[in-house]
């Protein structure tokens, strides 16, 4: 999936025109986990909807598996199967009477039936770790965490090659988040591209292969987690909670120790140790040491 110089404004040509994306470029390949981070209103959801051909680029290019998204392009529906999009609060789209029907909605829309449909549903249910006896339940009567799983399953059931998730962790508790991350890692290892929209920098730095930082609709940084951590150390982004590591490094810098977060952890520890009044960060006499 290739996105180049993408710009988009809502209500263009009216007095309430609002620029949501400006000159954003990013590419994602299969088996990769890319996180899109940014403050609220920075254009993350707008970018996510372009990946699914729900929004058509006003300028710039969106190309998915060789198909370019244009207003007249054929096969946009096929693209929407390839790129599964899990919306923010996806449980608000529920309409079916049972969780099974909800999960079967997408594959059935693409013509799966009978044995094949069963197989899609089973695959999705086991992927998200939903207890099979909940399948007959009314989706509205499930708990929040179970609802989120049904919603995820309803997208995974169409076996997408790319999975775009808009704030998938919003409203989940800590075990729920851990479980979700385990699921996404598993899907990535199966060859899916995972694109996660989030404002949780720490989790994005921990789990993704690459990050894209959006600020006011513009991409201000992109790269591996270490590079992004280093970037954030130098340019804190308004409206995002800086991860503890970055805060720590910023605190050290105020005291005259400049860390390079892109270097490996051994080098960083050595750098800190050099400035300590006593040696051995993991040594026995820690009680006598203080910064």
């Amino acid at each position, binding site marked *: 999936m290739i996105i180049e110089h993408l710009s988009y404004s*809502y*209500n263009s040509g*009216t*007095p*309430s025109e609002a620029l949501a994306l400006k000159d954003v470029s990013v590419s994602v390949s299969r088996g990769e986990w890319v996180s899109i981070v940014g403050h609220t209103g920075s254009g993350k959801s707008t970018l996510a*909807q372009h990946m*699914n051909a*729900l*929004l*058509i680029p006003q300028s710039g290019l969106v190309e998915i598996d060789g198909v370019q998204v244009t*207003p007249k392009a054929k096969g946009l*529906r096929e693209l*929407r*199967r390839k790129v*599964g*999009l899990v*919306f923010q609060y*996806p449980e*608000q*789209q*529920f*309409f*079916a009477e049972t969780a099974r029907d909800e999960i079967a*909605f*997408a*594959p059935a*829309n*693409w013509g799966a039936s009978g044995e094949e449909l069963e197989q899609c549903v089973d695959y999705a249910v086991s992927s998200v770790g939903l207890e099979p006896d909940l399948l007959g339940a009314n989706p*509205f009567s499930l708990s929040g965490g179970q609802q989120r799983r049904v919603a995820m399953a*309803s*997208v995974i059931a*169409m076996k997408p090659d790319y999975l775009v998730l808009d704030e998938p962790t919003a409203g989940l508790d800590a075990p729920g988040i851990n479980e979700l991350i385990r699921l996404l890692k598993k899907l990535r290892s199966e060859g899916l591209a995972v694109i996660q929209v989030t404002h949780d920098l720490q989790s994005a730095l921990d789990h993704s292969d690459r990050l894209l930082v959006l600020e006011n609709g513009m991409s201000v940084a992109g790269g591996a987690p270490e590079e992004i951590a280093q970037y954030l150390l130098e340019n804190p982004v308004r409206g995002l909670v800086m991860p503890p590591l970055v805060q720590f490094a910023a605190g050290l810098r105020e005291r005259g120790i400049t860390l390079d977060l892109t270097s490996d952890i051994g080098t960083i520890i050595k750098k800190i140790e050099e400035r300590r009044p006593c040696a051995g960060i993991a040594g026995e006499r820690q009680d006598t040491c203080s910064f």
Partner: protein
Amino acid sequence: MQFLSGISLGQFIPGDSLLHRLDPRCKIISTFLLITGLFMASKIPDLVLWGIFLLALPALSGISLKTILKSARPILFLVAITALLNLFWTPGRAVFQAGFLKVTEEGLMTAFEMGMRLFFLVVFASMLMMTTNPMAFSDGLERLLSPLSKIGFPSSEMAVMMTIALRFIPTLFEETDRILKAQLSRGADFESGGLLKRARSFIPVLIPLFILVFQRAENLAIAMESRCYVPGMARTRLNPLVWSGKETAAILGLLAFITAVVLLDRSYFLGFVAI
């Protein structure tokens, strides 16, 4: 693609123009005066004056003429229908006849005048909505209707209901747009198939929408109750409405203009009869 874009009939456009700053009561009364005036005088020469008035609106409201004219677009269809009906159903001297369809000279005139009258009506009414924040509008309406509460008319409840409805219309469109998109990305197809199939394909949109609306209504009720809202109880205002000299001047000016148009209309009519 944005599925429900361009619904701009009378949407509030924030600004700081003379019209924006006028008391909402003044604008509501003015709109009624204008509508009355339009019904009293909409012959072709009068329409010229109304047109001149329309051309003054961009300067008064800070809204471009293009946007003002665009606000009438959703009802152009209605204007056309009205004009067509009048075109064929007005008796008089025929200028064109095909079968039972007969176009008369009088029909042409009436069609044009009726169409233009409707057009001006919508443009003036949407001018009110474009320059008045919905909250201020319902405030103004409440104050104007408050004398009726003496005879048991629930004017303040009406105003609250209207505020809420106006406040939630855009939200409702946003939610519909979001749910439509969500179902589209799960492969829903709203465009192909017969009428029945297409109608059925909207079930996955309508059900979540209804659920959301009820949830919102409930949340709103709880929020209002927890802030001690009691229907019918007198409340004070954060921004009380002020009727100052400029409101009086605006009304008087408008009245003078409308009187002039009506007088012109009558003199034209008298002159026409004299000939």
